[in-house]
């Protein structure tokens, strides 16, 4: 990595220290709390799966029963009750799940021998961590075996038919065309569901439900094309919304490779309660960290919501915060796919120079991070020919600044979710451009008093100003006052607040402690 922008290292370090200070009180809060979905995620790791005849998933049934029986019982963690039932009934996890789905209430059984419960739990923890570790090993083996056969940056395509079986066809075609990463877009508003649907699904709006079975189906399909292409095809889904940790758990078990996972997306763009989101993101990231799953953060959303030129600093500030939260969850830099986007108004004079500056800045400030770069979307229109031109320049900047994960822009972005042909044209364009400008990154330098360098310095400065304000205000108040993304979110407002759980003194979560141990986390 060559440093071309001459950014002041001490200011960058200062911004990182601001991030540390800003997030410290949040971390304190997180440490003292769990949530319904953290508990359900734990149950899932323990083996809870399936759904009742109304489609209510077993993890929800367990957690809801515990709460219904005693509103404070979750303070002790849900695992205790589930494993207790398992020990007492003496059957398999599967048998217990079936029973629960059929109406059995785990709280109906009195707590048995603590030792026996803990021993059983440790066994479950060991088994599930082993499975996740094996997945990670398999992925790393394949990446080693087929080294050098992926594109750089990785080309990332979405499928969004709403039907997992159609998705599979589109994904296979996309991979054959050259995609390295397939993301299955989630159905509209799944992030607002406080449960994860069960089984294979064929009806989604603008996307497909994230379910464990759907994960499994897509994983198998991509492994198949991967073998043919001798290229590891990464699978991505969304661990945002009200079920962050559960989806992370499902992904770890089904060997997903990337997860959309932002520390504040749910709060700002989905109106999910802030406390809930902070708690959930931590546990989900611990799972991702252990699974070797790359997270993709959602800074692009700031730029589609507000003006991309004026609010560039919000992206950098968010990257620093996401980085800090990720480190605190044990996620190394190389798994932090920090987000940003090419979203400036195409009529801005020197827009290209500014985009180049910001992408290069991200590269230099986050040198080990597999930056996730998002294409133009907001200013895409029905003019598909202009769209191709915008995507061409976007592809250019991405290669010219050595980004890590490259989301392909669609010429029909403003019209419909991508057709198969749209996706092909996107890959084809990217491969043309990236091969044609291959050496740009190493060959080109910027005038030290020029537009590119000037822009990067300015954005860094604005970022620090902004972070200082957030630090002074305090994170929770800053969000409440609308400092982020121009939306105000009341502390106890938003969805899912009621799902927050204060950990009791006897809080028991052997998965959490297992993960902390494995990740070497102190708190």
């Amino acid at each position, binding site marked *: 990595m060559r440093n071309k922008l001459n950014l002041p290292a001490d200011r960058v370090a200062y911004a990182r220290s601001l991030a540390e200070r800003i997030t410290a009180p949040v971390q304190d809060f997180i440490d003292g709390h769990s949530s319904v979905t953290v508990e359900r995620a734990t149950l899932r790791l323990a083996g809870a799966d399936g759904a009742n005849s109304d489609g209510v998933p077993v993890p929800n049934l367990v957690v809801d029963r515990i709460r219904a029986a005693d509103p404070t019982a979750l303070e002790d963690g849900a695992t205790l009750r589930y494993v207790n039932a398992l020990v007492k009934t003496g059957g398999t996890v599967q048998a217990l799940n079936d029973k629960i789905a059929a109406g059995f209430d785990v709280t109906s059984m009195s707590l048995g021998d603590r030792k026996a419960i803990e021993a059983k739990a440790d066994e479950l923890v060991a088994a599930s961590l082993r499975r996740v570790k094996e997945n990670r090993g398999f992925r790393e083996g394949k990446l080693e075996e087929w080294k050098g056969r992926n594109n750089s940056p990785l080309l990332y395509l979405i499928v969004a038919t*709403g039907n997992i079986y159609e998705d599979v066809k589109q994904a*296979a*075609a996309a991979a*054959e*065309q050259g995609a390295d990463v397939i993301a299955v877009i989630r159905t*509209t*508003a799944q992030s*607002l569901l406080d449960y994860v649907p069960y089984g294979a699904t064929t009806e989604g*709006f*603008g996307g497909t439900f994230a379910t464990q079975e759907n994960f499994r189906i897509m994983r198998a399909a991509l492994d198949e094309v991967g073998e043919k292409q001798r290229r590891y095809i990464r699978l991505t889904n969304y661990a945002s919304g009200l079920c962050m940790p559960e989806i992370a758990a499902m992904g770890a078990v089904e060997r997903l490779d990337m997860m959309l996972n932002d520390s504040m997306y749910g709060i700002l*763009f*989905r*109106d999910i309660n802030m406390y809930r989101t902070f708690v959930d993101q931590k546990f989900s990231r611990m799972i991702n960290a252990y699974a070797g799953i790359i997270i993709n953060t959602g800074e692009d959303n700031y730029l*589609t*919501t507000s003006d991309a030129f004026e609010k560039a600093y919000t992206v950098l500030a968010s990257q620093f915060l996401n980085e800090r939260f990720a480190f605190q969850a044990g996620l190394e830099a190389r798994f932090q796919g920090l987000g940003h986007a090419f979203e400036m108004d195409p009529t801005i004079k020197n827009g290209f120079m500014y985009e180049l500056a910001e992408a290069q800045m991200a590269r230099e400030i986050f040198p080990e991070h597999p930056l996730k770069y998002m294409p133009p979307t*907001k200013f895409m*229109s*029905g003019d598909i020919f202009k769209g191709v031109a915008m995507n061409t320049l976007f592809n250019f900047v991405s290669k010219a600044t050595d980004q890590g994960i490259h989301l392909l822009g669609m010429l029909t972005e*403003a019209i419909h*979710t991508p*057709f*198969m*042909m749209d996706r*092909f044209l996107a890959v*084809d364009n990217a491969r043309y451009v990236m091969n044609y400008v291959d050496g740009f990154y190493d060959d080109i330098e910027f005038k030290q008093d020029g537009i590119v360098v000037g822009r990067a310095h300015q954005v860094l400065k604005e970022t620090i100003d902004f972070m200082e304000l957030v630090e002074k205000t305090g994170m929770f108040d800053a969000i409440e006052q609308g400092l982020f993304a121009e*939306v105000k979110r009341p502390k106890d407002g938003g969805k899912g607040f009621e799902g927050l759980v204060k950990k009791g003194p006897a809080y028991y979560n052997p998965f959490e402690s297992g993960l902390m141990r494995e990740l070497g986390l102190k708190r």
Partner: protein
Amino acid sequence: MKVVRPYGDTMDDGKVQLSFTLPVPDGAKGREAARKLVLSWGFKDCEVVHSNPLSAEYSMYVAYGKTESSIDYDSVVADEASADASMDMDGVNEYIRQHIGRKVVIVGACTGFDAHTVGIDAIINMKGYNHHFGLERYPEMEAFNLGAQVPNERLIEYAIKVKADAILISQVVTQKDTHIHNMTEFIELLEAKGVRDKFILVAGGPRIGNKLAVELGFDVGFGRGAYANDVATYIVKKLAEKK
């Protein structure tokens, strides 16, 4: 009667560019199939100028066709709540002062599960869009923007509460016709409450045409490129008319 045909580089040459995918392998046979398909749409002539495999079983085509069909331009009726005659912000405020004589109240939201705020913000929020201020900036209007993901029920309650003259709803996601379901539900709810006629109902979004909106029971619909003053012009004129 004014006969109009597509124009390539000579009047009435009828040239049209097409592209599409077929679920067949790429090759000579696929290209011929593509050509025949284009001819089956009534094109007199078609050249498939490009084909490419998308996978072993799918292929894409670019073609140019020549059509002889035409339409009578004079008989075409524009579908859009035309922006041609919109007043600007000052004009709207002046109009309100002269013809209505009190503040006009509007309530807006992006309803259902739709989370796209930018469109409704463009119409309502202070700063507006593309150098057109939003309705909040209009001195003679009182505007409430409830944001996105707002249930229809809540929006209606709010409108009743603040005695709104007009309700604005935005729908951006149209996959599987979600917008139609949601807009229909909105009208049904209003009718069930017996308050349909209390409000001017405005729908908007990039895929919302005036025609569609009217069909679904709204007073008007605005698509891509609408500005606050277009909407305001419609509302205040309609309001004056109603009185």
